[in-house]
């Protein structure tokens, strides 16, 4: 990626394709240029512009942890022009990547605290980077709890990792599906994420809550956290406004005078409360 032209992408080879859920795939990407790989560094929470030449660029997070060097992973749902083109690609093909952009989850500040991750549907990927980052530095934190829900069992992403997290004894995983989305052998909970969260009666003492999900899930989750005494400064989320440039120039991701691409995507609930509701 040339420093001269801020819109020039790295070229990255697709090393591995994982089918996560219907229409949802994970790519493991590696730099085609060794010096790019050596130079590249990112933090949990950052995102990039992924491109298919001839189709365009699309914005999503880096879903792998910065503790796992030598590759990055991204998870996307086939939805628009670029993600549909990405979905047609196979291992060995080359895509463009610009980044990393945006701010990071402040893991240093969270040292010595309990972490409560709450995610819904396709919003687990932006949280997976920070979950693995935290698990790879397990002794930094006290209790780690993940609550993850999706519409149906089929829609749960990272199924292998859910199995792995479920078996670990140094963390707690709660999975749930919306009523009607369960299968005969479903062993997790049945209910919407905010409802299940309420049943869990989470402790707010010395705890950071990280919430990622569709707007409706977030809307009903914040009040539950507040009910259990979470300070709005201890609740983190990521915003996903539409972006083109990723570097504060193209003018579409702003929420008031704040740019999601530069000041975010990670925000505390306290910060969101001071912004106009344009996200």
């Amino acid at each position, binding site marked *: 990626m*040339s420093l*001269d*032209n*801020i*819109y*020039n*992408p790295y*070229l990255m080879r697709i090393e591995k394709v994982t089918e996560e859920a219907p229409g949802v795939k994970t790519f493991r990407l590696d730099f085609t240029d060794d010096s790019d790989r050596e130079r590249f560094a990112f933090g949990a929470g950052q995102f990039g512009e992924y*491109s*298919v*030449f*001839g*189709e*365009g*660029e699309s914005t999503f997070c880096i879903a792998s942890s910065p503790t796992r060097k030598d590759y990055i992973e991204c998870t996307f749902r086939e*939805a*628009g022009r670029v*993600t549909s083109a990405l979905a047609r690609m196979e291992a060995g093909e*080359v895509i*463009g990547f610009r980044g990393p952009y945006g701010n990071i989850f402040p893991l240093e500040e969270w040292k010595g605290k309990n972490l409560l991750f709450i995610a819904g549907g396709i919003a687990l990927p932006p949280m997976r980077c920070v979950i693995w980052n935290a698990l790879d530095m397990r002794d930094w934190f006290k209790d780690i709890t993940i609550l993850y829900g999706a519409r149906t069992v089929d829609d749960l992403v990272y199924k292998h990792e859910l199995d792995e997290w479920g078996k670990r004894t140094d963390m707690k995983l709660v999975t749930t599906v919306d009523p009607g989305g369960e299968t005969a052998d479903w062993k997790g909970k049945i209910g919407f994420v905010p409802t299940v969260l309420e049943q869990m009666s989470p402790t707010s003492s010395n705890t950071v809550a990280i919430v990622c999900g*569709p*707007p409706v899930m977030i809307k009903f989750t914040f009040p539950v956290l507040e009910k259990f005494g979470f300070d709005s400064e201890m609740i983190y989320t990521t915003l*996903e*406004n*539409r972006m*083109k*440039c990723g*570097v*504060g*120039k*193209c*003018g*579409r991701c*702003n*929420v*008031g*005078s704040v740019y999601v691409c*530069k000041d975010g995507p990670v925000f505390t609930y306290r910060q969101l409360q001071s912004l*106009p*509701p*344009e*996200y």
Partner: protein
Amino acid sequence: MKKQYERSLKGVKQEMTFITRDNLLVFLRSIIDSGKELYAPQLRAEKIFFLPVKDVSSVVFDYVQTVESPKELLFPKVERMLSYHYVDGKMNVTDCSRGQKTADRVLFGSRPCDAIGLKTLAEFFRQDIPDTFVQRRQDSLTVVSMSCAGSDENCFCTSVGAGPGDSTGSDVLLTPVRDKRYLVECLTEKGKFLVESEKELFDEGEEINKEEYLTKLLQTFSHKEIAGKLSGAFNNPIWDEASLRCLGCGACAYVCPVCSCFDIQDEGNSRKGDRLRCWDSCGFALFTLHTSGHNPRPTQSTRWRQRVMHKFSYMPERYNLLGCVGCGRCSRACPADMNLKEELNALDHILEEGRQRVEERQ
């Protein structure tokens, strides 16, 4: 200039630099002859645009404002950012900023508002992570502006902190005085370089009061007061009413000297093509539409609010830059006759009334 005025207040007459219209045409010709690209107001389909000059006799001197701003000289409507070509099993990407043509250009006849617009645009693109495409073009552009002897009902530069003889952003500023002569102010090294290359065309004359030769434009609102009032006006119903006429066509953004929003699009196929940057507008519904169908600015009124807020509140707050230079082009271009100056005056009144009502209640 300021110093000259200050000295003249003490009674010391200063010499000023002038050029005649005839010599100005010679000067413009010399710019072309020296190999530079000259852009100046010229007629195209009976309207005036900044166009490349081949023959200086086609340069127009009698105009209030060109249809489009000169922002394309820094930020083209469509710009190739990179090219890609898949050959022999390998994707090759060519960075278009490397071979970018940075011909020396001279813009002649821009109004003071346009010069401020170019400066604002360049400063915006320089923020945080500098955009070299815009930067390089600005580095090789010399701006020779012309003060305004006339204005129309859409002009409002004096309400946004500028004026018909403002020299901000210009390298050279000419002010038409009597007998087809122009007062010449060299404001930057670039400007001095250009003028000194043909200095025999310029002459020294007795000091004059520049203000006498400028159009008088009444200030109708204060952008600083508007910015203060806007910060509490996000949920005000005025946005709905003011935007009822808006077609969402984006013409205002295209003619605006400061609007800088863009889209990035690929043109070509999977083997060969270009990645382009194209002008875009916050007035378009698709501008902020998420793939999921969710749109943070779902209605024309929320998009109109963004346009006004961005220019008069967010940009000043974040970058200490004002997103408007008062050129009035948006009002001239609007097919639904929306008029930014009138809208801002109305906004000022309504927000002031609201503020007073709140004070009375307290």
